[in-house]
């Protein structure tokens, strides 16, 4: 069975969305923050909290664009019933700016998602290298090997003194 056919069978049954009781999900209730101003204050408090700052700078360092982060944040808040989806879409640019402010303050290099990427097939992204390193570390830890963060420097090879060859030939002095 192909993957496509498999995913077809995993799809929801038509009308399944109507089987839930109305009001059982947070987004079916009136939002907690009805206006854009209220939503902006909510995000300002949330983004400027110290715990959130640390987590978000880690994600920024991995190379996730700020627009993607902002979209995920506002969609999560919609699902929690904090605000409506239209307020979320309106607030998104402010969230991106707040995140870039946090990134600037922390001195992290980030991408907003608007940059044009020059695709170089020979260049591997830093985030990919970091992820690969993390996977290798986890595998090594599972295998019971000790992981050394800094590679030990190879011992400098002893320089061999050049051995003088014995002079050969007719005119060689002995």
């Amino acid at each position: 069975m192909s993957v496509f056919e498999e995913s077809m069978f995993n799809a929801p049954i038509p009308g399944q969305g109507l089987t839930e009781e109305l009001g059982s999900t947070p987004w079916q209730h009136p939002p907690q923050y009805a206006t854009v101003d209220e939503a902006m204050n909510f995000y300002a408090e949330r983004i400027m909290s110290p715990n959130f700052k640390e987590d978000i700078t880690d994600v920024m360092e991995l190379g996730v664009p700020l627009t993607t982060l902002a979209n995920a944040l506002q969609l999560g808040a919609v699902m929690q019933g904090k605000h409506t989806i239209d307020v979320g879409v309106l607030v998104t640019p402010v969230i991106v700016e707040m995140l870039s402010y946090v990134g600037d303050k922390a001195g992290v290099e980030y991408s907003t998602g608007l940059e044009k990427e020059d695709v170089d097939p020979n260049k591997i992204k830093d985030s990919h290298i970091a992820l690969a390193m993390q996977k290798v570390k986890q595998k090594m830890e599972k295998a019971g090997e000790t992981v050394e963060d800094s590679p030990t420097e190879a011992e400098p090879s002893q320089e061999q003194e050049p051995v003088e060859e014995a002079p050969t030939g007719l005119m060689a002095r002995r």
Partner: protein
Amino acid sequence: MITNPAKNMYSKALSDVRKKNTKKVEPVKKTGLLQRNMQQSSEETKGNEPYDNVLDAMNQIITERKKLKNVSF
């Protein structure tokens, strides 16, 4: 193709902030029968729409970022 709505919204808001920051001087007609000032009154330009609040907030954050370091904008 799947597009990120936040990306579109952010790029649009950025261009709108730039437009807002560039002051447009309307011509003032002083001669002729139809003398009038083409400039809108301050009450007309004063925006109370939610999107205007968003642009104002963005402007504030951008100025704060400029203070932090010289961000090219």
